[in-house]
């Protein structure tokens, strides 16, 4: 031992670790991204390979309005989270409600488009390759929107009962990570289906 001794700090250095909810949601998003990647690859691989009609260029209409709805719901959920962190519950609830409505409108838009494709153009999942790939990819996304809406509704119900406060801000933040992911996936699906795929 040398004469020089380094004093050992009495107070333990701060030991902070990342939030487990956020880590888990990030992992889930990575896993989900891989699932979507496979469906997107399948869609792109089968573009123009349908042996029979209808083809995408004949029947698809770009859902610009509903896309704006879904993308703006990302902004409202983000602001809602900020308000919750600052303890402004009324503003939080209002924006949360708006998020839910915007998401529901998007889902309604998807339903409307499917109705039109099925009844006007006779395109179902078994009609041709385009139908298989289209309904699977858009349907997988719509399924994620539905799950997101269910979770938004649960938070909304608890919020209306006055049970969502500042202390839940972290958990609400985890949910909004998921919702942002659903929106980002739509950007990819939109580009693939309505721009590249035509």
């Amino acid at each position, binding site marked *: 031992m040398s004469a020089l001794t380094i004093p050992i700090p009495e107070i333990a250095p701060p*030991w902070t670790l990342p939030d487990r909810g956020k880590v888990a949601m990030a992992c889930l998003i990575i896993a989900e991204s891989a699932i979507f990647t496979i469906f997107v690859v399948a869609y792109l691989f089968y573009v123009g390979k349908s042996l029979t009609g209808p083809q995408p260029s004949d029947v698809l209409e770009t859902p610009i309005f509903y896309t704006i709805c879904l993308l703006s719901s990302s902004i409202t959920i983000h602001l809602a989270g900020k308000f919750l962190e600052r303890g402004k519950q009324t503003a939080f609830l209002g924006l949360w409600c708006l998020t839910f409505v915007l998401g529901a409108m998007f889902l309604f838009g998807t339903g409307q488009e499917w109705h039109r494709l099925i009844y006007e153009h006779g395109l179902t999942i078994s009609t041709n390759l385009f139908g298989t790939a289209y309904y699977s990819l858009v349907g997988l996304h719509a399924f994620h929107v539905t799950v997101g809406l269910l979770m938004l509704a649960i938070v909304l119900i608890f919020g209306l009962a006055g049970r969502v406060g500042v202390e839940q801000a972290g958990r609400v933040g985890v949910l909004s990570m998921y919702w942002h992911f659903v929106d980002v996936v739509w950007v990819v699906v939109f580009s693939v289906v309505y721009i590249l795929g035509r």
Partner: protein
Amino acid sequence: MSTQVIAIETAQQNVGKPWTETVHEWVTTVDHKRLGVLYIVYALFYLVVAGIEALIIRIQLMHAHNNFVSPEVFNRMFTMHGSTMIFFVGIPVLFGFANYLIPLMIGARDMAFPRLNAFSFWLTALGGFLLYFSFLGGNGLYGAGNAPDVSWWAYAPLTAKAFSPGHSSDYWTIAILVAGFGTIGASINIIATVLSMRCPGMRLGRMPLLVWLNVVMSGMVLIVVTPLSAAQLMLLVDRYLGGHFFDTQAGGSATLWMHFFWIFGHPEVYVLVLPAFAFISEIVPVFSRKPIFGYPVMVAATIFIAFVSMSVWAHHMFTIGMNSYANSFFTITSMCVGIPTGIKIFNWLGTMWGGRIQFKTPMLFCIGFLFQFLIAGLTGIMLASSPFDWQLSYSYFVVAHFHYVIVGGILFALFGAFYYWYPKITGRMLSESLGKLHFWLFFIGFHLTFDVMHIPGILGMPRRIYTYEPQRGWDTLNLIVTIGAFIQAIAILVFVWDLVVSYFKGAKAGNDPWDAWTLEWSVSSPPPAYNFASVPTVASRRPLWDLKHPEDPDSRYE
């Protein structure tokens, strides 16, 4: 800062409790240790089941024109053997050890999400149940056959409704899908636990290598198991909703299924082998009485393997006719895997070099692993070369190669892990003499089976044939392979006997029978439900060394 670890003896609480209560406790448990044990016991059960299927395959191939089972049953047997061994033995047993050990090794009281943990296990369990329920429920149509018979790759169009009527393929698809979700849940849990639950001082660079390797493995699972889930969803769309993903008559592509399957299938090998590396990296240092050689390089090599393994999948598809650029690319990337694995083998040798090696049973299995994994890697390099692969793909050479990896590598490491951690899990030692008998029997049986199996492959024997013509020079070789398989089966019986008898009559283990250095050995055996009475603080990679040698702690040098 002190490294204080308190061990508390658990009272025997199981005395006088009705058995229904014990069952209820195990079914509803969210304790990572109990779930770990459930995973391991579940996997051991399927190991025996799939082992019996392997024996049926081997009896059928014992000599030419054998009629032990019909061709249909033979197809079911190799499908069930492969699917079970990968999805319901390999993955659960490795997740079982990860579940049991990771919280103990990083000084946590449980996983990050105990209920998700239980949910993941029961999903996996349901998957195995569904797969085997197909024997009863698969008969959708008269004469359709029960258990799945499409092999574990389930290449299109074998799985199309026209070629696989009834529900056998559906049971296979749903079983794998459900078990895949369980695997993904367990991986998310492991990553969240490692990133968010470490005890004070347990920086990433101080985690035991087992934890490192398992967290990298879990990261891989997120990216590689999900493509399989996606492909299974597509297959379900095809079979139930009349989709055309893999329907070549409607413009679909059978090759796309191959790509999706192998994007999962090849990295899956690394998902299985990384935890095996993890066991070796814990056991070899303890029985060499030296710290692991080149810790940072080991971590880097692991991450390198994870990256490279994502870009090698099409080496399973050289024979379908890709262009020369694809062939070259996948040949080069596949050979690149040899670099980080070579680094690892040298590091384990470096750990043993100059150490005072104790040839206890866990160490014997590890040394067996080192040699066998090296040979498996060398035949892997041979098959990675696309012209060579054109000759030997779909032959018994390939079967011998990947069994060398999975049995000679992963299973040997796993047996080492059983002998090493059994005292911690049960509080009793496994018998050293039965362990040595198990090792030598299994070692001889393994080499008899899988060394010899390379030769019929080179002589042109294709895989998945239910019988063959005499006078091809395959008869004697196949007989030797079958004899080796039975020697391995006897070794497994010795092992199971040892597991059962030692549970009741084994020598008491105490907290730390191997004089080891990681945190799990600081608590009693078996550990109490809460793991650590007070959350430990660590200052180096070998906290127990620091505790045992306060005059010369590792923390001074790291």
